[in-house]
């Protein structure tokens, strides 16, 4: 039985259980079957116990410890913060980790997209996309909303070769700095394969900022339709956005109703 899929915590519990079973007189085969481990793993755990006692049984934690990886220096972080409040020049709807890494490299701060990903995550700037497809079979108001209002639009847009995006606006509030030193509002989008594009703002986004974002999404595939499932804004109250949507009939803006989109899952 393969143990590669197990987390270190579960694996360690099973290894300890395997040693206890072996001490009780079970054979390797019996122990492997009862503990849900392979025979070589049982033998390895047993050998580790005989050589080093109980403390030697658990496996070492995988990967690098938190904080041991390369971190962004203060100067790079300042550039990153400044960039996040701007609109990218590349035509991207908002900043991706790759786009930010390239922008920082251009000004003499070479960092990887992965490092930026970690930095965003540490600062609570990496929201998860909505689990939309999980709604297809749900018997709930959220499920009905998805099947009746979202699924048909997304299927039609995909069929026409258009772009499908998810996004939202939110207040990021877990940071220790006061609101005056860090922009509290985050606009974010999830594109293909859930790639995050984000921007930070000092004030709640105004209609002009939303429309600029929609226009950028629209311009990515100008001759094809675009669908955006968006949460966190009350567009119904904005006549400017209503007018923009009327002028762009091939842009489908789907508002996530209250209560359907809180958090990353429904």
């Amino acid at each position: 039985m393969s143990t590669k899929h197990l987390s270190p915590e579960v694996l360690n519990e099973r290894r300890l259980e395997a040693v206890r079973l072996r001490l009780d007189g079970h054979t390797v085969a019996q122990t492997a079957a009862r503990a849900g481990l392979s025979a070589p793993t049982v033998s390895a755990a047993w050998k580790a116990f005989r050589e080093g006692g109980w403390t030697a049984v658990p496996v070492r934690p995988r990967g690098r410890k938190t904080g041991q990886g390369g971190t962004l220096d203060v100067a790079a972080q300042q550039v990153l913060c400044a960039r996040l409040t701007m609109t990218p020049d590349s035509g991207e709807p908002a900043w991706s980790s790759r786009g930010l890494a390239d922008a920082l490299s251009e000004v003499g701060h070479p960092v990887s997209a992965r490092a930026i990903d970690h930095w965003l995550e540490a600062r609570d700037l990496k929201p998860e996309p909505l689990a939309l497809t999980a709604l297809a079979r749900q018997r709930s108001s959220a499920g009905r909303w998805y099947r009746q209002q979202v699924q048909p639009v997304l299927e039609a847009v995909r069929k026409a070769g258009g772009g499908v995006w998810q996004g939202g606006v939110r207040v990021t509030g877990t940071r220790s700095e006061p609101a005056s030193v860090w922009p509290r509002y985050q606009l974010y989008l999830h594109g293909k394969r859930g790639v995050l594009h984000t921007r930070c703002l000092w004030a709640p986004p105004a209609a002009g900022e939303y429309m600029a974002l929609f226009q950028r999404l629209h311009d990515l595939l100008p001759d094809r339709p675009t669908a955006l499932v968006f949460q966190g804004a009350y567009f119904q109250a904005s006549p400017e956005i209503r007018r923009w949507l009327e002028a762009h009939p091939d842009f489908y803006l789907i508002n996530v109703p209250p209560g359907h989109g809180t958090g990353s899952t429904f």
Partner: protein
Amino acid sequence: MTALTHLQKLEAESIHIMREVVAETENPVMLYSVGKDSAVMLHLARKAFAPAPPPFPLLHVDTRWKFRAMYTFRDNMAREMGMDLLVHINPEGVEKDINPFTHGSAIHTDVMKTEGLKQALNQYGFDAAFGGARRDEEKSRAKERVFSFRTAQHRWDPKNQRPELWKLYNTRKHKGESIRVFPLSNWTELDIWQYIYLQDIPIVPLYYAAERPVVERDGALIMVDDDRMPLKPGEVPMMRKVRFRTLGCYPLTGAIESQADTLPAIIQEMLLTRTSERQGRVIDHDSAASMEKKKQEGYF
């Protein structure tokens, strides 16, 4: 015999006050603002006079700017309770289209609430009015007696209040005078929530956290409840998970960000909070001691 819990003691005290008022006055009324305190007060009134309905009507001094959910709840409650619900709107305020945006919170409150209340009390000739105010809400309410006497012009004199030793209430009044009675004076916000939870009292859903469209105004989160809310050019309200600790006119009532969408969660939140619920009321910040001034002029 087991001792009463603190909530049972508060309940008994409130019921005693209500019965005292009904026994001692001629034409009492219960002010019903549709909030949680009104809900508790109404529940206590029903208990106090059960199995008969409470021997007084409900009076809602409407400003036309309450939350839509409050109007729906008010009408449903009145229908279910089988009590008379009197709704009074100051006709002069309607004529002049007094509203919190163009006239400001102070004028709006004075015309639509204070004057509206005085008009309604005069019109129906009520000599005692139950209110759901509590001492822990605001400092001027803290020093007001349970039986708060008002002159014929409905003015309150904080320096001329009657002692209420051993919970003995002197209800004698001069001709034209009236009494505002606060049966929930000694309750705290936490007591109210615990009582609502224990007695399963229905309340307006706005008290529970949910995603609602809000805009920021002077640091307060104001819910965009209808099309009358003027937005700044290009402003788009954000959907945020908020709830209200207190309910009034929607443009003057600030929401708080909260995840408390059940009564136990609200109670847990109350245990940790160190601010008054009235921090969310814009009218309380109009000027120093603004509540006391309003009360002296006749505000409830």
